[in-house]
């Protein structure tokens, strides 16, 4: 039977056919552990790990430790690494949000199976990996056994055509899809088509990451030349095996997206599923806080566009612009390139790389009645603080433009392309 891309990858990993609906048992190529799961996930009780070279430990959710409890988690994580001979440890100072770290270290590769107890693990689908979030108990099992199971999902295919405008981000493309086609619960989401070749990896990474928000089991892109170049740059000398779907694969649905027709989009508070619209619908909505960061949009390209938009402007009075580079590497590059200076000069606050503000944990949290526009991953009620705060979602460019005006704004007004 011809296979969709996720079937190809799961079939190879399980050593047999991966028919839709079947449960396949796969070797896991890389399992990433994160700091906060050491709080109560019993990793300290593990007798031995299946393969220390297939485990990475990344400090991201609560760093630098904001509490004694989080400091204890860090201590346990370091002890675990020492006890089991794990060398891929990205501790504070060499850290970043796990999905960004896996990408820039070349640990996410085409055709591999990646597991991590963070729901945005699907980010690695941008490079053709079968990657998904799994619960902490299951991650512990994989650490012990090196294997897990997947029920092979049916695939929704998005056929991309055209070329996006310069002010359009992967976030806008995702919000367009989520608003128009809604949820993907229990499905893989695959991208392809003639528009793919021109779509930068940063946008693919944003789209793949956001797949969790429509409930997709996996989000996955084929490994075209642009993808292989990206992975090769991160993992020089590594032999890569490109993965593609079969031409005549069967899909649950095939949907067309003309990238040239995607405008700046905004997700309304609560969920992105069937709940997004063009920025025009919401221009003028007052905001208290604007946030650019997370595994979805804390990339160098995201900081670059934000810096370009705010340069020469000031963040509006009574509005906060918070920017979190997704990793130390990005922080350093953005610093050297002057992006951070431009942001700070405009009145933004630039924070340490962490998941913190995105999940309302230890910084950037919202008070009751406040309104935030965010380029982060998720806009559930209460996600970033008070359950009585509203969180809109948009691209880094739209968030930056909105921070300048103090209300949701059309980035095209800042780029001389106003409609």
């Amino acid at each position: 039977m011809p296979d969709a891309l996720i079937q190809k990858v799961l079939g190879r990993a399980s050593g047999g056919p991966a028919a839709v609906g079947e449960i396949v048992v796969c070797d896991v190529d890389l399992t990433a552990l994160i700091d906060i799961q050491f709080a109560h996930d019993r990793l300290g009780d593990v007798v031995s790990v299946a393969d220390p070279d297939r485990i990475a430990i990344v400090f991201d959710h609560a760093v630098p430790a904001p509490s004694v409890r989080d400091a204890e988690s860090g201590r346990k994580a370091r002890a675990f690494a020492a006890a089991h001979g794990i060398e891929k440890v990205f501790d504070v100072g060499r850290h970043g949000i796990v999905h960004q770290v896996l990408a820039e270290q070349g640990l996410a590769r085409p055709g591999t199976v990646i597991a991590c107890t963070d729901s945005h693990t699907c980010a690695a689908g941008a490079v053709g990996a079968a990657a998904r979030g799994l619960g902490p108990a299951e991650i512990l099992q994989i650490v012990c056994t090196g294997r897990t199971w997947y029920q092979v999902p049916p695939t929704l295919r998005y056929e991309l055509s055209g070329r996006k405008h310069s002010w359009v981000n992967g976030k806008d493309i995702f919000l367009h899809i989520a608003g128009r086609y809604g949820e993907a619960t229990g499905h893989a989401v695959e991208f392809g088509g003639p528009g793919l070749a021109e779509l930068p990896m940063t946008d693919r990474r944003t789209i793949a990451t956001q797949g969790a928000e429509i409930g997709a089991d996996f989000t996955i892109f084929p490994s075209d030349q642009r993808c292989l170049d990206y992975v090769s740059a991160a993992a020089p000398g590594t032999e890569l095996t490109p993965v593609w779907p079969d031409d005549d694969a069967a899909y649950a649905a095939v949907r067309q997206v003309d990238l040239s027709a995607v405008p700046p989009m905004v997700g309304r508070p609560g969920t992105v599923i069937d709940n997004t619209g063009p920025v025009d619908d919401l221009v003028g909505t007052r905001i208290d806080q604007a946030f650019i960061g997370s595994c979805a949009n804390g990339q160098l390209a995201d900081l670059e566009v934000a810096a370009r938009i705010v340069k020469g402007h000031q963040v509006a009075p009574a509005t906060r612009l918070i920017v979190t580079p997704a990793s130390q590497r990005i922080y350093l590059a953005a610093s050297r390139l002057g992006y951070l200076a431009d942001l700070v000069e405009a009145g933004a606050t630039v924070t340490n790389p962490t998941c913190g503000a995105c999940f309302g944990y230890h910084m950037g949290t919202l008070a009751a009645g406040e309104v935030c526009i965010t380029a982060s991953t998720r806009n559930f009620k209460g996600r970033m603080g008070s359950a009585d705060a509203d969180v809109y979602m948009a691209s880094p460019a739209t968030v930056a433009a909105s921070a300048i005006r103090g209300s949701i704004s059309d980035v095209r007004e800042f780029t001389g392309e106003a409609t």
Partner: protein
Amino acid sequence: MSDELLVSGRAWVFGDGINTDDMYPGFAMRLPIDEAARHMFHASRPGWADLVQPGDIVVAGRNFGLGSSRPVPLLFQELGVAALVAEQFNSLFFRNCINYGLPAAAVPDATKLITEGDTVRLDFTDGSLCASGTVHPIAPLPELLRSVLAAGGLFPQLEAAGKLRPAGSGA
């Protein structure tokens, strides 16, 4: 088969799209499990943790558990919730529940078949749900997952296999 596969309890009924951040808010992740459990459903039904009784069953609509991998089932278990029923589960949330030994069943139209306060009986062995005197089929669990549930979750399985030291004996 363990008693885990036969569950009976009083129902709490929630709607569609209940997400993990509602059940286990970010700020509660800073707390020990017993304290975090007091904040379940903080966004959709604040104060619920004071009302739920051990043995109760939580029923929800479509897309139940969209969101994070955070260990929500540990909070349900802390409050004594015996099982979850939903019209449709997010797959990450569903396997997370089974892997912690919390029974979960997909039942189309569950929120129409079950009224809050009803006594619901779930039999995971014969695949049935009984509510208001009527019996409905539940989606069968694959054998792999039934064995996890019967063992009480992955931790007991891993302990039995000698891969995990008994709780509290570790570093």
